[in-house]
């Protein structure tokens, strides 16, 4: 069962990204939205298992002047967000 993990808080104000690292498994997706996109400035400083897809929501990046590090993070628009919630079995919000 694949899971979409939503992160809406800045990595500078929460530790959930580290907690999340223990909860993800192969085939899962992580999507940064709202202030969560500040985590997309660089590579994650935590260790993730193989086979996790990392995304940042384009419009929240644009409104904050964040250009995601393209080596690590893909970007998607709201339509992509919707498609991801449909193609995964469940969505979990971390906050």
């Amino acid at each position, binding site marked *: 069962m694949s899971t979409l993990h939503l992160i809406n808080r800045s990595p500078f104000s929460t530790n959930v990204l580290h907690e999340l690292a223990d909860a993800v498994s192969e085939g899962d997706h992580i999507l940064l939205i*709202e*202030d969560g996109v500040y985590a997309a400035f660089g590579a994650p400083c935590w260790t993730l298992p193989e086979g996790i897809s990392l995304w940042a929501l384009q419009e929240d990046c644009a409104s904050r002047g964040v250009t995601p590090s393209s080596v690590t993070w893909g970007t998607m628009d709201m339509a992509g*967000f919707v498609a991801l*919630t*449909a193609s995964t079995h469940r*969505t979990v919000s971390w906050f």
Partner: protein
Amino acid sequence: MAPQGLTYALMVQGAPYSQQASHSALRFAEALPAQGHRVAAVFFYHDGVYNAASMMSPPQDEPHLLERWRALHQVQQCELLVCVASAIRRGLLDESEAKRHGHSHPTLEAPFELTGLGQLMHAALHYDRLITFAP
């Protein structure tokens, strides 16, 4: 291939105009029909219940969140469910609760409705996806 024609329930926990949750949830919900999906219910919880404040009067050059929710209800026929326990203590009362507590005017009106957590459980069990928009 993503499945088609899914029904969604959204949970909104962020307060309007101080957190982005309402905006994110609305943009998400408004993007569903283009892919053949629809939002069947929105559950407002914790400070998210302020989205239902019937006297909400934002400046004209700002998004009117109450009107956006009403429009969503009209377009996608979704239920707008407000947690009664979160709402009453924050001063959001429908007509019968206002009467019961001795107030002259309701502060919450249709299409928003006061409901319990049972409705959230019902939404989680009966609809295909539940997406939480956190504070």
